[in-house]
């Protein structure tokens, strides 16, 4: 068992890559690429489940660590490991991968080999971002995650693929230039790319405060674009409306939010506190702005994009509130947002494949034709809105409580408005898509509800929404071991831990 523990993370990184190579080698017949991709993602998911099964709650620091010299000069280590913060995110990526394959099963008809190979490379890149503890390796995976995404958007874009791909790539690539300079500067100062070493050195080292401020800003800027945080969300709507469903499911939020927690606040706690008021303000603006724009969209991909902006801003609020409750809520909300968004995108993808339009007003009255689709969609939407007993509620509640008690009552009240608005646009979307008079579109095609594969994905996702909604204590203790926001004021800590106890 020890041997598995020592190499499990390498396996998680290599299996999708090996799958990608295999997909490229087999002939494109009998849906072979699809099956190999599915098998690879299932194996990878199985491997990720090994992590929570053998994760020790009592052990501090990183677990399943591997730390080997990769490049001598400058000293770059292949250093990977998980803690409570990244553990469930890794599992989430593993979970969404088979869902993505199933979502693309029939949607992708041409160049399947290339699609699945790139999809699997994207998996490796995402795992790499969550697992890396060496800044250079982290940066490598961070950049690598852009390439398959951009190519696939260009290849399979719905109307204007290349343009959206270019926008996505440049929006996320250019901010990573200052990030790399900041990383190199840290190396020039300390001689190390290692996360834990740097953390200690920054906390105790005699760095010039001014320069450290700029380095922290460079980190924050790169992450904020990736999340995205208002007003840096320019790429989001186009990407969502062009990206293949499987990739839209995996792209938003997770990488940027995780990086903020780990590498921005984790490395620069002092500086993060300086930025926190600004970020809280932007997050609240983002919540309302995204929700308002979602209300007026005519295209359901764009509606989902602005809904995502609103929800991701809420998570950002939880992160930069710098409270323990807020952090737990934020990590929990990243997980539940991933699950819910995965289900919603899968369902919208089914609709789009069948009716070939994303214009909301073309739909209507589908509920009688496609009862299963409608039911799953309603459940997932309710989870997204934050109905108690479903998973969206827990995270939102924790974030808002953290904000209310630890940051400012005013911001929390304004942010709550966003939750109400999210109910408005999601319920209205349901009404327009599934209820009301039967549209010409609904009668034009034979009713053909979800097929077995899609059901096999949606049932577990829906069950997960429910379980995550009623039994958050299955996840929260693990998350709590990895989330230690920097102490702001002693008073805040006590209040937030009181809330903990009360809950």
């Amino acid at each position, binding site marked *: 068992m020890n041997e598995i523990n020592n190499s499990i993370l390498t396996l998680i990184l290599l299996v999708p890559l090996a799958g990608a190579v295999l997909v490229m080698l087999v002939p494109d017949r009998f849906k072979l690429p699809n099956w190999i991709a599915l098998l690879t993602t299932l194996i990878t998911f199985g491997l990720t489940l090994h992590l929570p099964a053998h994760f020790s709650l009592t052990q501090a620091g990183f677990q399943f660590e591997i730390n080997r010299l990769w490049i001598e000069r*400058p000293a770059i280590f292949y250093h990977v490991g998980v803690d409570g913060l990244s553990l469930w995110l890794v599992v989430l990526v593993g979970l969404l991968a088979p869902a993505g394959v199933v979502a693309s099963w029939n949607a992708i008809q*041409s160049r399947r080999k290339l699609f699945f190979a790139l999809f699997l490379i994207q998996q490796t890149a995402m795992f790499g971002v969550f697992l890396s503890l060496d800044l250079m390796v982290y940066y490598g995976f961070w950049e690598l995650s852009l390439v398959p995404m951009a*190519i696939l958007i*260009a*290849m399979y874009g719905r109307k204007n693929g*290349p343009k959206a791909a*270019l926008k996505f790539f440049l929006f996320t690539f*250019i901010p990573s*230039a200052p990030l790399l300079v900041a990383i190199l500067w840290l190396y020039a100062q300390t001689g190390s790319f290692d996360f834990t070493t740097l953390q200690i050195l920054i906390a105790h080292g005699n760095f*010039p405060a001014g320069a450290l401020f700029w380095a922290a800003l460079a980190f924050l800027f790169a992450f904020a674009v990736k999340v995205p945080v208002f007003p840096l969300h320019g790429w989001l709507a186009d990407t969502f409306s062009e990206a293949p469903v499987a990739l839209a499911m995996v792209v938003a939020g997770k990488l940027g939010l995780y990086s903020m927690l780990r590498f921005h606040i984790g490395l620069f706690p002092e500086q993060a506190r300086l930025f926190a008021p600004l970020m809280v303000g932007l997050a609240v603006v983002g919540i309302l702005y995204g929700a308002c724009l979602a209300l007026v969209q005519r295209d359901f991909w764009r509606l989902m994009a602005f809904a995502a902006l609103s929800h991701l801003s809420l998570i950002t609020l939880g992160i930069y509130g710098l409270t323990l409750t807020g952090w737990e809520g934020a990590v929990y909300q990243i997980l539940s947002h991933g699950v819910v968004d995965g289900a919603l995108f899968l369902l919208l993808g089914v609709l789009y494949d069948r009716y070939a339009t994303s214009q909301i007003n073309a739909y209507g009255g589908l509920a009688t034709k496609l009862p299963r689709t409608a039911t799953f969609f309603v459940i997932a939407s309710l989870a997204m809105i934050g109905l108690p007993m479903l998973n969206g509620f827990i995270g939102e509640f924790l974030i808002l409580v953290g904000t209310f008690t630890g940051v400012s009552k005013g911001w929390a009240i304004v942010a709550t408005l966003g939750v109400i608005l999210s109910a408005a646009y999601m319920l209205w979307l349901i009404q327009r898509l599934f209820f009301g008079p039967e549209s010409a579109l609904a009668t034009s095609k034979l009713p053909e509800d979800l097929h077995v594969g899609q059901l096999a994905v949606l049932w577990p996702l829906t069950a997960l929404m429910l379980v995550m909604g009623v039994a958050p204590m299955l996840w929260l203790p693990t998350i709590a071991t990895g989330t230690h926001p920097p102490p702001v004021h002693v008073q805040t800590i006590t209040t937030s831990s009181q809330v903990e106890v009360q809950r």
Partner: protein
Amino acid sequence: MIFVLHFLLNHEDLFRILPEIILTLTGVLVMLLDATLPPGWARRPLGWVAAFGTTLALWGSLFQLSLPEGTGFSGTIETSAFTVFFHVLICGIVLVALLLSLDTLPEKSHHQGEFYALIVFGAVGMCLLTGAVELLLVFIALEISSIATYILAGYRKHTARGPEAAIKYFLLGSFATAFLLYGIAMIFGATGTTQIYEIARLVPTAQNQSFILAGMGLMLVGILFKVSAVPFHVWTPDVYEGSPTPVVALMSTAPKAAAFALLLRVVYEMLPTLRPVWQPLLWVVAVLSMTVGNLAALRQQNVKRMLAYSAIAHAGYLLAAFAGLGTSGIAAASFYTAAYAAMNVGIFAVVTLVSGYDEKLPLINDYRGLIYRSPLLGSLLIFFLVSLIGIPFTGGFFGKFYSFAAAVGGGAIWLAIIGLLNSGLAAAYYLRLALVTAQRPDFDGEAKSTPPQGSPRVGAAVIAAVAMAVLATLVLGIIPNDVLRATESGAHTLQAPPAEISVPVNIVEPPSQP
């Protein structure tokens, strides 16, 4: 006669130019065979002869590692880890270029034998240039390599662009070499010697400092022309556009590698004491090259012109390494040369295969849907573009990484920031090509109008060439340790011992902001 015999028996000196000897003999052999073969016979086997000779020369340079480090022929030529590194690099590039030409040159093209011979003779000059420690030999080597490339540039005589390219390249190139020669003369005037070590020893105490500065400036003009750095870059797009693509694969990399080796030798070995003068100069040239190259490339419609401007930008990234101190700068520059060569040869090989020797598909829009027409070529093109953008796990990333790390280590943080923002800018045009390649061809109904491929034959040679480029790009991106070690030992041999500057390891005071 006796003198010649004595000379031949002086083994050690001969071993010091072993790769050059092998290459010369190969070239002569190819020329002779070309002349003796009956007119009707295929000349293609001559290309294999040339490729074999180049491989031998490559082994010859590796053998030179076993020689004691030092100079031969009365201190005119040096063998060291540095020269071996560049010899191997140049021989590798030439080999790939030969293999590429073997399959892509039209069967009936005239003077095929000469074509191969010229490539090999050019390689002699380039190899000699990296080893020369005597300014006159430097000049001769530069001329040998330049003349071969001038002729090769104009090889498509039947087109208007071919001769135009050759004449432009020749006239401007001659000017540049004249500048170099004038610079050499001035330095000779100031120090009384043309031997690089001697000059390095004499420069700090020489009386005519203004002569030395002027000589350095003129030499830099000549060398920066060869690496196509701004403001000496105007020839690049025209020449690249007019020359046959396999030749561009060669001349955008090998002569540049040699010229960068010379630049490293001149600034780090010959004039290390003048660092306060040349470092700001190269800083400005680096920033200008990146910015001008990238901005101009954004507007290009022709793939080869776009890649020409991108080559200018890459010269800028490489020059950023010269802001690095001592060994770190030299090692970074050498590594970048290798990484750049691997990916650039690769992308020009793919471009050759896509558009053919006669370039039926010169424009970016002609590549629309390439990945649907030919998945392998499309994927390879995207792969090399990804490396040129500088995405991790490819050679392009580590090249840029080391170059800017050296710059940051040398205190030039702004140079690194400008450089990395520039690489964001560059991503825009590389991606334009990559995304057009990946675009579904049925958009805008243009699929039907896509011209049929004048596809060159895909034989063993070209497969080997592309495979070597892919492999080199990946190796430099994933396991760069060995190459890095080679560049570092090369950097140590180039550095004069007293000028060694220790690299900070632990926390130190921050480098001063520029």
